[in-house]
């Protein structure tokens, strides 16, 4: 569930860019729908499909937050949660070995991905010149599929929101019969099961501090990452096909393949050498920026690749300086892609835990606080915090959409 949107974003772009003529040519040859999908569409998109699968696999491999919240009660350990517990119980030697294992996995997947995609790369550059989109007529199945998809969405996306809201209102955990706003609006220190929890969420300075910390971090990271992604995309597209361009784009993608936890632990090792940086805002920005760069550089590159060089040259000829060309020609044309290059890091950064869990104080980021409430088993508070994060993310997304007319899902594959 967690990765489906990501896969959709990657694959949607590929499918949308595929030349409809290719399928039409097959239709002319009297191939039926199924045969077309099997024989034409699939082979063409197969490389990117495989690479999507591999990437999702490698990122879930490294994922910490999901297994941490869901798995730990049931004793379902994965490498990354083990890693964290090793750190907390200060077996750092073993932890670094584990890090190495995770990195090796990452590199393994990079190679595998390269092997699969590299060989057939020519397919992946199918660029859509044909603008005609022909919809598949699915008749009644269409309705069926739509209903299933909507149910799926409601069940897995909307339900949690409602349940977060409800859970945060429960007087007693899990008991929906007695609801209270106590955990939201209490001015007094709440004592629950004889522990002090802090003030109600809306008046809890600790929470607001953490939330502000997260927003600040996310904004700074998003600005850095989005801009770098745009520039990397520009550079790669300008020198397209050259060795340097390939090297740059691969290099920018590399952090993606280092599992998040391993990444955090590498930087933990770095900061233990340079105590000045330890636990500072700066180190979080650096780590976040590097971690999210791959995504922004990918979306930046694909957006730039779609612009023919002539678009920029036309502006060069009339004497527009570089900065004008960037801000008035290139950026506005692929606005939605580039905006999503800013938004996605922001959103991911807001919810990111695994990356920062080893590096930050528990009060500095809202996800850290969340993890703390969760460990302390105060589900009303943690669910409330969850809801707050989601609201902030949606709000920012909404505001940016309204201001720029760009949206996150349209962005990655192009228009």
């Amino acid at each position, binding site marked *: 569930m967690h990765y489906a949107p990501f896969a959709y974003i990657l694959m949607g772009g590929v499918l949308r860019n595929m030349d409809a003529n290719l399928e039409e040519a097959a239709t002319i040859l009297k191939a039926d729908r199924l045969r077309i999908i099997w024989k034409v569409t699939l082979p063409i998109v197969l490389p990117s499909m495989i690479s999507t699968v591999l990437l999702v696999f490698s990122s879930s491999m490294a994922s910490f937050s999901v297994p941490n919240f869901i798995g730990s009660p049931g004793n379902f350990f994965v490498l990354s949660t083990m890693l964290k517990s090793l750190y907390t119980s200060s077996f750092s030697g073993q932890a670094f070995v584990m890090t190495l294992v995770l990195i090796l996995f990452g590199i393994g997947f990079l190679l595998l991905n390269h092997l699969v995609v590299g060989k057939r790369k020519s397919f992946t550059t199918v660029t859509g010149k044909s603008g005609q989109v022909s919809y598949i007529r699915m008749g009644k199945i269409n309705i069926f599929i739509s209903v299933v998809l909507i149910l799926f969405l409601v069940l897995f996306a909307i339900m949690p929101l409602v349940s977060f809201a409800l859970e945060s209102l429960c007087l007693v955990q899990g008991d929906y019969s007695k609801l209270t706003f106590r955990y939201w609006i209490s001015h007094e220190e709440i004592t629950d099961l004889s522990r002090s929890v802090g003030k109600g969420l809306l008046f809890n300075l600790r929470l607001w501090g953490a939330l502000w910390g997260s927003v600040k971090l996310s904004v700074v990271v998003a600005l850095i990452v989005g801009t770098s992604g745009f520039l990397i995309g520009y550079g790669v597209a300008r020198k397209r096909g050259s060795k340097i361009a390939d090297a740059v784009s691969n290099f920018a993608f590399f952090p993606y393949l280092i599992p998040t936890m391993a990444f955090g632990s590498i930087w933990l090792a770095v900061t233990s050498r340079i105590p000045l940086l330890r636990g500072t805002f700066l180190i979080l920005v650096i780590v976040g920026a590097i971690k999210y760069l791959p995504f922004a550089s990918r979306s930046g590159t694909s957006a730039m690749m779609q612009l023919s060089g002539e678009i920029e040259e036309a502006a*060069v000829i009339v004497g527009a300086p570089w900065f*004008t060309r960037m801000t008035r020609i290139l950026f506005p044309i692929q606005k939605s892609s580039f905006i999503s290059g800013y938004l996605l890091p922001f959103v991911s950064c807001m919810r990111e835990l695994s990356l920062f869990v080893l590096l930050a104080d528990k009060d500095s980021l809202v996800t850290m606080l969340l993890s703390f409430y969760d460990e302390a088993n105060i589900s009303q508070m943690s669910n409330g915090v969850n809801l707050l994060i989601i609201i902030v993310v949606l709000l920012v997304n909404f505001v940016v959409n309204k201001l720029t007319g760009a949206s996150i899902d349209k962005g990655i594959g192009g228009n």
Partner: protein
Amino acid sequence: MPEIILRNITKRWNDFVAVKDLCLTIEDGAFVTLLGPSGCGKTTTLRMIAGLEAPTTGDILIDGVMVFSSEKGINISAAKRDVGFLFQNYALWPHMTVYQNIAFGLETLKWDKPAIKGRVQEMMETMKITQFVNRYPSELSGGQQQRVAIARTLAPKPKVLFMDEPLSNLDAKLRGEMRTELKRLHVDTGSTFVYVTHDQLEAMTLATRICLMNEGVIQQYDPPLTVYEQPVNVFVADFVGNPTMNIVSGRASKSANAKAELQIFGQRFEFSSASDFDLPSTDVSIGIRPEFLPISDSGRIRGLIYSTLPAGMETTVKIKIGDAILSSVMFGSVDYKVDSEIRFDIFGNKILLFDKESGRNLAFGSVRII
């Protein structure tokens, strides 16, 4: 007004030589077409003059100013060369309206608002696109987009206008109309036009001079009619003209001053030129334009009809003679029966004699059956 001079321009990509030691002078106010098959280096040449590509070696001067020199390390950017460039797919900025597209260049030149407004209005009127002022490029047809692109390019009044196959994306009818307008535009603006095309008809009809290139080397640089009538080699002869020139292999020997005896189609002919020429080898090729093969009952050469292609205004007749198939063009619409026998002549004094091995033109003159 400017004159463009290219001296010993070479462009290399690794081992691939796109343009080889090219020297070219484009006179002030000329309409020069760079013509050649795809991959001959014509677009590269254009982009180098415009400043979008840097030559590997050589010098470029525009209006007496050195804009590029590999030796002196000069490379003035495209923006400062005061040129306009019309791209093959127009490269209109999709997020700007017609007005904004045209005004953009003027804004970067820091014209004041009323001046921009006036100039854009003027350009839109010239190109007849006033009614589209607030449309986006995607809402225009190909021909309308082309007009906007021209208006955008001409708005800052460039001294030189470069065009890279600007008509190749248009349908045949529109292409014809735009040709007429481009030729008028050239006269009206008085600018120097440099135009890249692979379409020989476009080059013939538009240019004051054609620069025909092949594999990065200039083959011929002459006015269109000279290129048509006196091609310097077989490549040029074959590339220009439609239907293509008949090129027939034969043998020749000098018979007198400025005369040679030819053996073609198993018959003997006398070739006579206005001035004397050398004959390096007995193996020659004879080039005959289709219009110089008139079919008539009194013709002295016999052939068989291979096929007839009437197009309304003129008819191309394919004639089989020996192993060769010749094209003949005649005015009006005629239809011959396949395999029927006809008679024709070789007419006029623009029959070409080429050296078979080098393809070089040796002489042109008339041919008489003996």
